[in-house]
């Protein structure tokens, strides 16, 4: 149930890269995400999705504009923001030489989870994610799916109300991806977490998210429910809408060389 209370709000948020700030990774982003909803940020590769996640998690600083996360300003209340968010990065770092338990214990310490709570929470999370049997095994021996589950568990170790998931299924096989999708659904529907998910895999976003935003070359080009976006773009499917909005149509002239080759 969406309460419509804004939990993430960006105002003209921008991040420019390069010596002359010529690369606009995020350009004037205005966005609202509501408490308890699963929001999906869609975009082609290099559209700026990961940069948005890093900005909203105070990992990098914006060039312009600002944002609040659960009422905390990302420019001045960084630690407060970090305490209310969990994040699964696109290329996450893992300590392969730690066991699953040790890794979660370390993450708990980084987020100041009281030691009397931490032990029980780690056990709960390991059981929830089906990793309890392997708790003392080194992470290097885990499968991709198990590593992803461990990383999601690490993102939840301090029980944050907001969860950022950057391409949570892109590197997984169908079985592991299915399992991760179920988990995300569970976290959103049952645990009441606000999910902010980035992906370029349309069916995943379509299946899991209440609302989506489409970002292209750093600019938000559409926002709404899947049906609203399809209707607004005048297309029939989300894939067609996505291609229309991000300018990805195939130019038939590019394939003209085939006819020339075919000619004797």
């Amino acid at each position: 149930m969406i309460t419509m209370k804004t939990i993430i709000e960006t105002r003209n948020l921008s991040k420019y890269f390069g010596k002359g700030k010529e690369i606009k990774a995020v350009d004037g982003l205005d966005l609202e995400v509501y408490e308890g909803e699963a929001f999906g940020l869609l975009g082609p590769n290099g559209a700026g999705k990961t940069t948005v996640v890093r900005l909203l998690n105070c990992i990098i600083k914006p060039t312009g504009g600002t944002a609040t996360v659960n009422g905390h300003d990302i420019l001045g209340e960084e630690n407060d923001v970090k305490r209310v968010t969990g994040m699964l990065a696109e290329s996450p770092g893992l300590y392969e030489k730690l066991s699953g338990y040790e890794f979660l214990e370390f993450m708990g310490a980084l987020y100041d989870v009281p030691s009397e709570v931490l032990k029980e929470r780690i056990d709960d999370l390991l059981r929830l994610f089906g990793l309890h049997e392997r708790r003392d095994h080194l992470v290097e021996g885990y499968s991709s799916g198990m590593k992803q589950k461990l990383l999601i568990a690490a993102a939840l170790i301090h029980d944050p109300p907001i969860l950022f998931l950057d391409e949570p299924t892109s590197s997984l096989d169908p079985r592991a991806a299915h399992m991760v999708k179920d988990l995300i659904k569970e976290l959103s529907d049952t645990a009441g977490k606000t999910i902010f998910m980035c992906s370029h895999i349309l069916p995943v976003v379509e299946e899991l998210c209440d609302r989506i935003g489409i970002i292209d070359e750093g600019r938000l080009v559409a926002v709404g429910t899947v049906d609203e976006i399809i209707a607004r773009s005048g297309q029939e499917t989300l894939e067609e809408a996505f291609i229309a909005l991000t300018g990805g149509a195939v130019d038939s002239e590019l394939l003209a060389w085939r006819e020339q080759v075919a000619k004797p």
Partner: protein
Amino acid sequence: MQSPKWLAIARNEYRVQTSWIRGLRRFFPLAAAALLAVWVYYLAPMMVRSMVNDFLGFVLSQVAVALFEIILFVLSVFLTIIPVSNALKEEGLGRVELMLKAPVRPGDVLIGEFLGKTPVYAIVATALAGLFTALLAPLGLSLLQTALIILLAFVTCLSSFWIGTVLAAVARTTIGRTAKGKDIGKAVSFILVLPLIALFYGLIGGNILTALADPSTNRLVSTVLGLFPSSWAAEVIVAFANNPSNIGAVWALTLTRIGGVVAFMVGGLAAGWMVADRAYSLEPSGLGATEVGPDGAFYRTVRLLGGGGSFGSLLVSVFKDYGRRLENLSQVGYIIGLMVLINFFFVDDAGGARMMGLLMGTVMALFLCSEATIRGRENLFIYRKTPSGVGRFMRAKLLQGWLTVLPFIAAVMLVSGLRFGVAFTWPYLTSVGNALLIAAANVSMAMGLSFANPAYSQKSASYMINFQLIAFLALGAMIIPDMVLHVEWLHMPLAWALGLVLLYLGYRKLSTME
């Protein structure tokens, strides 16, 4: 009550460092302390017993301060490089992001990472201190002097490691961010060691001791290195050796130098803490993607050498893939540098230069041509897929190996020949030609074996096996005819026979690989 963040990070780092002895982790501090005690009180004194008289004679001589300064400076630089080199080899940005998304101060991360590795560093420092005290003990140092030497060894080592940790963090998040940066990092980590090797060779070969006996050189070295804290420790150690059990005679020097070393460490810690924000930043760096221009004279020549047609294009592509990795170029530079240094410090006649030429062929083939399959299985399948691709790929790699190795051997041998005034004599030129042909055979061996037993990473067992086997075969082909059978001329045919057999086996393996 929450433990400080730096402590959590340090504990985590310690767990990572001691992961290989997880079951015995709780006994590690005790076992390490016991082993170090055995080293300091028993092994080190026993080891240095045979050389202690020479050493004491040296430590009381006029070159002692400058030489100690050099040794400690080299050691400090080496200890600084280790964390940087390790950081550039591994891909640790994901871990940086892991820390940055948590409410942790970058300074805590820096201190935590350093402290977590300190037990390992402390072992190095204790081993070093044990060596110094064992060497100086016969002079009759007082307990205080011994304790101060141990303190100096600790502070000097830990300062170097701390600087290395800070530089490593900066390197990881700046040049380690992009593929180009990682390549630069790996290349630099190779080359950085070369000046240190030069110094060690200079010490072993005796050239440095001779040079330091000259008062003006000695003064120059002391003046330059005197700016570094490692030299302050060296001054104290030599002063104690000259005044055993009489610290009062050198109290001013002791106080100022030890004070300086400790102040440097404290200042270094503070400076590191202040730059930590910059060190742990995922803000984009200036390194972007590399853009290439049209082929220059070099690639045009390589294309011509390949016949100009499709094989020429293939050869150029193989060369570009190899030559555009700075890591490879740095490896070539490192091996050549090493060979030049050995030639310079240890070869003193034309016979030695000839032998070095043969050795260079083995070493260069070993280090530069055992990587033919290191870029992964997928690269090989590209050639499997194309018509006659395997044979053409192998020919191109072989030609690339010869063009990489042979010109350098010729150049180094000719320079050595000039040094001994024999460069353009017929017998010497014949031996250069002989060394080149044998080097070409060694390259064929190395390439052939790396195709016959493909290794897809430098950490794989296949790579290590190939490496040892090539060394064994190349040296065996030299030693058995020359020293066992006493039929010198057999060296070249044997090397070529091995090379051709291995190339054939490599061809068969690549052609049938699934």
